[in-house]
Every structure is written in C-alpha cells, then in structure tokens.
C-alpha cells in the first residue's frame, strides 16, 4: 500500500534531518529526497500501517490501495485530534463514510 506524497504540500518538515514520516515508519521506508521532499523508497514494502499518513503535519501523505487489489481514487483520510481520531472514507463511487472514536481516555 504505497504512501503517496504530495510534493506541493510536503515541505520536508523544513528539511530537518529526519522528517516526521521517516522518523515513524516501522519499515524505514520514508526518506528525504534530494529535492528536500519525502518519498517512499519501496512501495512494495509498505505494510499500510498509515503511521506516516497520520503524522504528517501538513497532510501531504495519502495512503493508496495498490491497483492490484482495488480500483483507483478511493480515499481513506485520518484526522488526528487530541484524544480522538476521525476517518473519512470515500469509495470509487463517491460514497462518503465517516468514523470518529476516542483513541485515548486521558
């Protein structure tokens, strides 16, 4: 499940040594490129845990379903609150589903 980085929005976390997505990826797959933008070095190795997508402060990362498994332009967008997470899912027919639940009690 390759993460797709929007190069317009990505600011490489201000080109600090390790952007947030690179810090968090359990597979060490996100990396800061020469153009100071983040990218996934091996889409085939992604496990789609979506940690990168959740952590990006400018919302530049999108997790996409590989085309082998599903069809194009479906979206699943997490939005991190303080103790709550919201998910918006838009399927290929444009149907929108929304989910919200607490992910921390304190």
């Amino acid at each position: 499940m390759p993460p797709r980085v929007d190069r317009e929005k990505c600011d490489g976390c201000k080109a600090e040594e390790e952007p947030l997505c690179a810090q968090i990826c359990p597979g060490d797959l996100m990396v800061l490129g020469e153009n100071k933008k983040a990218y996934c070095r091996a889409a085939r190795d992604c496990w789609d845990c979506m940690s990168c997508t959740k952590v990006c402060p400018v919302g530049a990362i999108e997790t996409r379903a590989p085309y082998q498994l599903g069809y194009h332009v479906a979206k699943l967008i997490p939005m991190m609150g303080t103790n709550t997470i919201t998910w918006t899912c838009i399927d290929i027919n444009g149907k929108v589903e929304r989910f919200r639940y607490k992910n921390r009690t304190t």
Partner: protein
Amino acid sequence: MAKDLPKDLKDIPTEVIETDLLIVGGGNAGCFAAIEAKKLNPNLRVTIMEKAHISRSGATAAGMDAINTYIPEGKTPEDLVRWSRSQVGGGPIREDLALSNAQNLNEAVEDLEEWGLPILRDEEGNAQYRGGWDVSIHGEQLKPIMAEKAMAMGAEVYNRIAATSLLMDGDRCVGAMGFGVRDGKFYIFRAKAVIVSTGGACGLYKSYTSDATSSHHQTWMSPFNVGTGYAMGIRQGAEMTSLEQRWVATRTKDFCGPVDTISVGYKSSITNARGERILQERYAHLGGDKAPRYIRANAPMEEWLAGRGPTYADTTHMTPEEVKDMKTDYLNERPAFVLFLAARGQDITKDPIEIYGSDPYVVGGHTQSGYWVDIERMTTVSALFAAGETAGGNPNKFVGGCAAEGKLATRGAVKYMATVTLPELDTQQVEREKERIFAPLLRGPEFDGVSQTEMEERMQRLMDEYAGGTSQFYRTNEERLDYALKHLKMLRDQTKFLYAKDLHDLMNAHEVIDRLDVAEVLVHHLKFRKETRWQGWQTRSDYPDTDPKFDCFVESRRNKETGEIEMFTRPYEQIVPGDRYQP
C-alpha cells in the same frame, strides 16, 4: 540524504553502551518489560534496542481492535488454559507457562487502560466481550501509549538500531550487537541480562499476494518482524521449540487482513462458493464454529482445493450499524482494509468478504513456536530471556498475553541479574561480528553479487513450494523438505554474495540472513514431526494422521561447532486437569 559509504571497517565508529537490562525489540512485550523493570527498581538501567521507532514499531504499528485475551468475571486462569489448550487441538502446550501467563494477564490489560487505552465498556462499566475471551478496544494508539509509558518510566531507548547478534561470554549471554540504520555505527550493548522480544518471523514464505509492484508486503503479520530474535539465539545454540507449529490463519483474500473481527465479532460464518457453511457442514465433529483455530485456518483452503472456492465470511446478514462498527474495528487495527473495500466499491451486505488462508508465519504469540524457556522465561542460553512472541511453548498469548510475558520475563531477568557481573569485552568476538555485519556494505558498488530482494524472493518461493506454503495448500512431505534443506543450505552459503548500497539495504540484507537461519530450523522441525497434528499449520502429506509417538514437544538446537541442527523431543506435562480437547 546520501551518506558516503565507508570503505573500510576502520571508518566505522563503535559505540559501547553498558546497562543492566537490555531489551532487544521494543514492541508490546518489550515495552511492558521495560516498564515492569523500572517499576521493580527505578534505579535499574533499562535499555531498549529497537530496529524502528518504538512509538509505532512491530506488529501493533497500526493499532489493535481487541485484546484477546482478558479473563472475564466468573472465569479463572485455569479456564483460560483449558480453552487455549483446546484451541490447539489439545496441545501439547507448556501448561506451566500458560498458567503463569494467565495469572498475570488481567493486570497487564488493566495497566493499559490506566495509561489511556479505551476499552469499550457498557453503561455499567463492564467490558464488552466479542468472543469468550476477547474485549473490544479502540486501540489505534495502543503502541504509542505503551511506548510513552516506557519512556516516561525512564527506559533508555535506542531507535533505529538493528540487532544482529548476541554478545556472549562462553555460554552466557552478556548483551547484543547491531548497527545503526541511520548513523551507520557499530553498536555493542553490554548487559547483565537480556530479554529478546523481537516478535515473530514473517516473510519466510512467499505471500500469495506478492505481486511485483506494490503488494510484496501485503501480509497479515508485520513484514518487518523477520525472526531476528530467533536467529540470534539459534546461532548461539539456543533451544527452539515447536517451530513446526506455524501460524496460518484465515485472512481476507488478497488484502490478507484479520478476519476474526468479522467471523468472531460479528458471527459471520465461513461459506464457500455454493453458500455452504463449511464449519458446520464439514467440521461439526470438531466443534463447528468453535473448532480449534487451525481447523478454521485450513478450512477455506480445503474448499479451494476441492474446487468449491471462493470462500467467504458471510457478512450479508449484517446491519448497516454492524458494518459501521466492524469498519471502526478495522480502522483500529488494519485501517487500509476499509480503503480496500472502498477501492472496490464493495457493499459487504451484498458482496460478502472473501477469505483465504494466509502465508505461514512463525509467531509464538499465536502458536507456540519460539525459544524453549523455563518458568522464569529464561531460554537455554544463560542470561537470555524471551518475552512475547519470541518465547515458545504457550500459544494464544496475543496482545494481552505478550504484555504479561514482558512482565514475567523482566521479573525473571531482574532476579537473575542480582548476582551477575559483566566480564571484559571479548574484542575478537566483536571484531568478527562487526566484519560480518558490514560485509555487504563494504563490498562496494561495483561488486558482482546478489541483492537482498533477489535472495529473499528465492528463499520465499523455495519455502512456499517445498515447505508447505499457500501454493501447496500447506502440504509438504519428506522429499520436498529435504529439497528445501539442500537449497536453504546453498542460499545460506550464498549470503557471501549479498551486497548493500545503503544502510537500509544493509538492514534488509541481514533480515534475509536471519530469515534463512530460522527457515532452516523450521524445515527441520517440519521434517521431524512425522505426523499431521495441526492440519494447515503443519500438514505432512506423507503422514496424514496423528501419531501418538509425537504427543510431545519437538525441539531443536544448533550445534555451535558443527553447525548441524540437532532435533529431539521433550515430554508433555498436563497440569490443568480436564479433557485436553475440550475448552
């Protein structure tokens, strides 16, 4: 951020860190181990060595939707052991470990709740059980919560350090070695006791989802857990148990995501292309819907093999509210599955969720593969303790159980280290290891060799075809296993041709090397158990029935001098009375 590759071992700096308790692998069990250690003695130096970043590393990276298990009101730890035993077809299991785990289980789960994990409770405050033993949670933050607690308690965390080998003093483990995936340094951790909690081993077998482009890691289990912990112990002659009891499970087809959520949580039966409810139809004598796990894992595959596929979890009866709840569960554990359904525009009340068997894994939190440990969780290597999925003998630990194992292993380790002093550093040993670690990187960009991807794919197809992978519907036989051993030997010999072009590659290269070591032992285990006791997990076409001679544990140990894998058995001991085959 291209770094200049070192040209010589001398260019690679070494960091030596001394600590009291070293925890290799900062996952669920590892974090709990660290927390428990600091609780027992705040002055203890506790160090976590983690390949990724503990906030999201390991199998719980995306979260969890349930804690299986948590003993409900009215049930006892013995009840849990009985259930666990029956789930693996009566065992044999290490009932001593299972009992001590069950006795510490609820405390671990309650810890998590106190630290902020939302456990779903009803108006009266009772936890909502979805099966007999599993409680629903909103666990999207499960891993960060555990990781933060470990840090808050004062554990020293070294992120992005890949462990490669144990540090030994004769037969005693005195630490571990590895390298920095970001800084490229050689790391030596010296410790009075070591807990290895690196999780299970995924990617020994080729996943059927492994198409070329974007789905290589479309596995149920975390593909970043490769069995390094097992491999490090194997290389030092540690005794392993029950590796032949591989974990194979029914999973959503192609996506390879969890299915218990649906089948158990929403009572969706497994059906085949004809709409037959398989478990009731064909496995009623084994308990039907409550049949042991491996029956449920294998059932869809048998249907496919017999030409009655595809197979489904029948979700057509679910109400819209239930669908929403189910998707919320998935969002907590494997969120991309919701995306998967959306990418097909799939309405599961009309199109049920397709299921299939997964590729086989070695994961001691679900089955009982792993290190042979004593009641203190010490392995057969002195001062080396195993916690969580790395420890064998006790299946059905899952999240709660692995957390409890972390605590237990720490208690064992802390008791042990009271009398320990650290020896001088064995410079020859560390030099050898440093050379071994960095060899692929130092071979240089012009080296005519093999990439880790190539070697990994070769190994995975070998295991799949010859050691009972999904393409073979988990079946294997003596001749194929011998073939596998022969080629695994060649592969292991060919690791000298591995090259790495950067530190990430180097990490992947060592993952392949570790997987090969585990695969070899696994195949020996499969060879040795000449029966079929847990169909699917361990199917011998040449020995299709159970043989009472093998009502025991199958053990292995690598001979450090010869490198040969020695196989033997240990007897099963029933501690909790009752019918082994009934919960």
